[in-house]
């Protein structure tokens, strides 16, 4: 600090307290509502202090939301997206920084242009792609008319139809989300800062590219990987549109989707106490991650956007 300005410091504290209060307000009322009985939660005005039903509501929310299964699903999906994204991004970043080959820049641009195709932009065709991931193969078969080639052999006309339906599978929830231009770009930028001597030395020692990746590049990238993984875990856990479209089976839904079903609508019993309790549950894992790993989380966020 350059000079003392007690009045300004006081104002700054006041602003921050106000800001923090604004952030906490919805969370506080979620705790209040989540600890009331269903009769109390409908009182007008809502009580300003929490009730004593928190644990009872928690049990009810857990059972009603099928959360044992849904937490497992969310964990699998979030970890799957994180691991998958990190893995394929490192591999492709390694390929475009450490190899000279013909379509290097083409590959780079292909990956980079995917930035302008967020999921939300191509909802319907992507749904078609997931409901039958073998569709491109089918076109190939139709275009080459493979069925007609086979007919002289047996004298019959064949229709070849292949299908690979990924609706209601972990694959459908994870695979379409693991391509990542930003993660690839982050690792590319980082690899460019690795000293050239390391690769030269590794090559002199006769290391293969994969050996160099495993023994030198990966250990150097650990802090980047950790920071990015935190962001990706939050991203995976908090997915909404994707699981909404691709899970019709209640047992394949994620926690966030399960929560949405607990929120009372106009024609339902207004069980806001259960819904708010469930909302607190659903946000718990990512909130713990952000609080416990704050410094890593900030690094990951700032790095991955540059």
């Amino acid at each position: 600090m350059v000079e003392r300005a007690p009045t300004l410091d006081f104002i700054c504290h006041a602003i921050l307290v106000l800001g923090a209060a604004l952030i906490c307000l919805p969370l506080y009322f979620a705790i209040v509502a989540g600890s009331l009985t269903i009769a109390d939660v409908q009182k007008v005005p809502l009580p300003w202090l929490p009730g004593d039903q928190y644990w009872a509501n928690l049990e009810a929310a857990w059972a009603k939301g099928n959360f044992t299964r849904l937490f497992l699903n969310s964990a699998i999906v979030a970890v799957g997206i994180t691991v998958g994204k990190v893995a394929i991004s490192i591999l492709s970043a390694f390929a475009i920084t450490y190899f000279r080959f013909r379509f290097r820049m083409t590959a780079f641009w292909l990956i980079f242009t995917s930035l302008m195709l967020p999921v939300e932009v191509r909802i319907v065709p992507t749904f078609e792609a997931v409901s039958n991931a073998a569709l491109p193969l089918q076109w190939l078969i139709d275009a080459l008319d493979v069925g007609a080639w086979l007919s002289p052999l047996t004298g019959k006309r064949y229709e070849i139809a292949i299908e690979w339906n990924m609706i209601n599978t972990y694959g459908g929830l994870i695979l379409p989300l693991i391509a990542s231009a930003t993660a690839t770009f982050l690792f590319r930028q980082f690899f460019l800062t690795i000293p050239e001597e390391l690769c030269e030395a590794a090559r002199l020692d006769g290391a293969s590219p994969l050996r160099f990746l495993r023994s030198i590049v990966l250990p150097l990238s650990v802090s980047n990987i950790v920071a990015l993984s935190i962001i990706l875990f939050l991203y995976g856990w908090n997915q909404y549109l994707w699981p909404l479209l691709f899970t019709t089976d209640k047992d394949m839904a994620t926690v966030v989707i399960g929560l949405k079903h607990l929120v009372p609508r106009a024609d339902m019993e207004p069980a806001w106490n259960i819904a708010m309790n469930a909302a607190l549950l659903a946000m718990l894992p990512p909130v713990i991650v952000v609080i416990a790993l704050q410094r890593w989380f900030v690094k990951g966020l700032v790095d991955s956007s540059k």
Partner: protein
Amino acid sequence: MAKAAPARESGLKRAHFREPRTAYLLLLPQLLILALFFFIPAIRALAQAFLLADPFGARSQFVWFDNFTALLSSPEYQSSIWVTVVFTIAQSAITLFVAVVLAFATDRVVRGRGTYRGILLLPYAIAPVIAGILWAFLFNPAVGPLAHLLHALGIPWDPNRNGDHAMILVIAAASWKHICYDYIFLLAGILAVPQSLIEAAAVDGAGPILRFVRIVIPLLGPTFFFLMVMNFVYGLFDTFAIVDAVTRGGPAGATNILVYKVYQDGFINLDLGSSAAQSVMLMAFALVLTVLQFRYIERSVNYDV
């Protein structure tokens, strides 16, 4: 990053391997997934946008720009564009303004800085749909504590009937969720301002606020630019879940932003041609934003590193 030597390919290490086959194998997973779930669907959206399928889906006809002209002349789409513009600009401006004030204050205080920062970062961890649910409850006209407060003040608050109220609520929820993002980047940016500049200005008699306005904010120019783009991306695409949780696009389309409309027309109303045309329009917006984002990356590479 040093400027690449002219003979060197950009973004290639000087010491590199020449085993194209390995490189292709390494790239395969990423490119396969991109092809299956990004490029082919995008091309299909593009193709469908120019086709008109008959109601049985058996045959489709090439109709040039008919889907687009129908779309752009439909009053619902026009109102959706207007709603999106209002929502995105209001949300971006509020988010950025609040984040600047909070970042300035955080940089100023010494005691409790970590605690303030920890609390202000919390919404980043919270899913947009959950943020939406929290705000929908607070302002629920029947049970919400803040809605009750408004009623007590004589304001007939009802986001289920009044479109303006619904819009205010969605903007509030979306901003609440996104302030932390801008705040993190501004805080990092403020910390990177050379202390010598601040001290020199202080010696010349500039007070803390003047220094912030005249020195820190101009130096943060690229950060502001970047955040503005990211706020637009967020407002245009990532707020689907908030709208779905708070208003479902209603009442009477008052909060039916473009992304929500694509979902509704494509999935609920099954109007594929129109939905595809809307997808293509959104891709165009995304393209513009990506180009802007790329300019920022180029700039930060040239000046910062």
